[in-house]
């Protein structure tokens, strides 16, 4: 359980991946691109490798990779897949 690096950042994300599997690699690059574009002032992305920390994934209720969690603002939101559908990802990150 790592602590967020920037407390004052409004958006905290955690992305579960499976090594450098193709969808995982796509998900990382897609997540960074979307955040850079739509949340340039404050966001925080934590990348967690499922293959190294499977129990963290279970604790977060994650059963498949890639899965993106919005830890803050609450409520926690999940986006499953390689994050190629930008509209769906923005809806999840911006929603209440």
């Amino acid at each position, binding site marked *: 359980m790592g602590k967020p690096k920037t407390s004052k950042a409004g958006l905290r994300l955690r992305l579960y*991946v499976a090594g450098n599997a193709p969808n995982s690699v796509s998900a990382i690059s897609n997540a960074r691109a979307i955040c850079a574009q739509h949340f340039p002032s404050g966001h925080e992305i934590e990348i967690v490798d499922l293959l190294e920390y499977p129990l963290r994934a279970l604790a977060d209720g994650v059963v498949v990779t890639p899965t993106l969690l919005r830890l803050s603002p609450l409520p926690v939101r999940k986006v499953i897949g390689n994050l190629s559908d930008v509209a769906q990802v923005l809806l999840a990150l911006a929603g209440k």
Partner: protein
Amino acid sequence: MKAEEVLHAEDVERQLFEAKEIIAALLSGQIDAVVDSKTRSPVLLSKAQDALRESEERYRRIVETTDEGIWTIDTEGTITFVNGRLSEMLGYAAGELVGKQSSHLEREAAQANTAARVERSRQGSSEEAELAFVRKDGSEVWTLLKTSPIRNTDGTYVGTLAMITDRTHHKQAEKARHLAVEAVRASEAEFRLLTEAMPQIVWITRPDGANTYFNQRWMDYTGLTLEESSGDGWTKPFHPDDKPLAWQAWQNATATGGTYSIECRLRGADATYRWWLIRGVPVKDASGNILKWFGTCTDIDALKQGEARLRESEGLLRIAGRAARLGGWSVSLHDLHVIWSDEVCAIHEVPSGTAPSLAQAIEAYAPEFRGTVREKFEACVRDGTPYDLELQIVTATNRRVWVRTIGSAERSSSGAITSLRGAFQDIDDRRKLQDQFRQAQKMEAVGRLAAGVAHDFNNLLSVVLGFSELAIDGLKPGDPLRADIEEIRKAGNRATALTRQLLAFSRQQVLEPRVVNLNDIVEAMKPMLNRLLGEDIDLTVLSPGPAGRVLVDPSQVEQVVMNFAVNARDAMPTGGVLTIETSNVTLDEAYVGRPAEVPPGRFVMLAVTDSGLGMTEATRARLFEPFFTTKEKGKGTGLGLATVFGIVQQSGGYVSVSSELGHGTTFKVYLPRTDRVAETSLSNPPAATMNGSETILLVEDEEQVRIVACAILRRHGYNVLETSNGGEAYLVSIDFPNAIDLLLTDVVMPRMSGRRLAEQLAPQRPKMRVLFASGYTDDAIIHHGVLEAGVAFLQKPFTPQALLRKVRDVLDAAAAK
């Protein structure tokens, strides 16, 4: 509770939403790994997915690139998968077929089968079938269908995999092939029917000569089975002598690809051979290679036999024609084309095959016959009058040859004369024989006449001559009657000579042959001949070797030479050369230049050649005919050469003559050679005196002859006992006391002949000599004109000198012994 429930409901909804998202992501392949809820360990999906995807990709590629149409159906027969090729084959868009009933792909009529097949598949059978599918546009696709059931892991039937291969092209090709096979089969059946109907043997062989087919005729004829004849079995019936020829012809045909054609003998089932014509033609492919040979054998035995018989009969005809010198000719009136057979050409002495024009054919006749030939030919052309002529042609070597030409008209079915045909024969030899025969007949007639009168005539002449002589002797020199009687005597002498010649040419005179050398006779005649010929004619006597001996009457041979010399002189009025040659010749059958009239044999030849005028053919033909003369009237009797001919014939010899107008004449006399030794002297030395004192018994039935003979002999001192017949003479002989030195008797007398009398008296008077007198040639002492050896003979009519000399000769010869 309620809040919990709501919360719970929100939670469930959230989980459901999440699950849906997970599923959607899974389905879209965006999931790399999952956490196994049981083991709490991550499971990486990407590798398994990749392998599966690869394998699927591989199969998909195979399924899409294969030429077969592939689809699957589920247990209900609904199509669940279709590959691109199937859509293409059946004319549907991609994906259009999925969800349709598979029976939809087949014709209505076949759909029951489809259901049955699906049912079998359900029960686990894989099968193959050839059947048609229906395209979207309704047309058919012939396919080969393979089906196999699809089962899941626990073995439950879940559907069927079907795969079709387009057999349309295959099917079309097969159909074409089938049609072709059918056509070939039909044409083969026709071919077989045809060949069996043919009267010939029909065969087929491979290019190497191995037989592959014979019709029944072959089996029927040869007695061989089809098995025995196949391969090279067909050579079995060939005649051994014909095998090399047949093989040679075959080699030749296969080498050149040309037609094979030979005539040869084949052995039949009955072991006899017949002649067949065998022909074969090669069947070639587009590039000219021989695929096989088609051939026939045609029975030509009858033809061949006929040919042989024709050749045989033609041969016989040719032999007969050659032997008889007989040929055939024809003239077509259409184009006046003349055909001469070989023999006709030979008779004309032109090469075989010569085809003269009609004008040339007529020109070939001797000029004097052309008119006749033309006239008869034209008559035959005009109204079909046949002709049969004997006339002369002039051959290519300018010889005149007697021929018989027979002509008759050939008519067409309408009766028009279309050609003339005929026979043509060389009858020269026959004509010559006929001429000789005619000549001989003429001579014999004259001879018989001469002989008939000779006996009486001779006696008359003997009387005339005897009394003239006696009368002259009784006159004083200077008596005016003397000249008159002298004329009577000369006339008598001429008459005597004429009688002698008549007898000579008619071969009725009496010859006294002796063995002599011809050279001696000619040599002895030289002075006399020189006087006879005169200064303008040179006489050359040639005798290349010692001439052989001949048995002849020397005085007659002298007569022959003399007659030739006289004729030669008359033929050379302005002078010339006369050559007399004697030589030995032996003529055999093959001797070239042997005159036709002379048979083979050993001869002494006497040739007399002058450089005179020569003679025409017409003169030559009548040369030896009595009374034929070319001399002026009164200059010749026409008996000279007739006499020669008579003498030579009577001596067993032959005369030939060759002459050309303007180039002189050669007479050749052939006398048979003898091996007997020559007698030393040619004739007795002439008696020194004509007188004698001996006693002579004279027997002569003709009174006047008796009187004159008696008078002559008495006047010359002889003592003559005069009798008129044999009986009287016999009595006189018995009564006469003294010696009788000579019996002079006529031969032909009534009751007792001279010969009989001589025989009767011989025992009484062994020393008495006998002298026969006769004017007749066929009697007791002369056989066929030839005197018996050792017999003394006096030819009637006789002159007093002849009588006295002969009497003296006989008496002196007796005294010498």
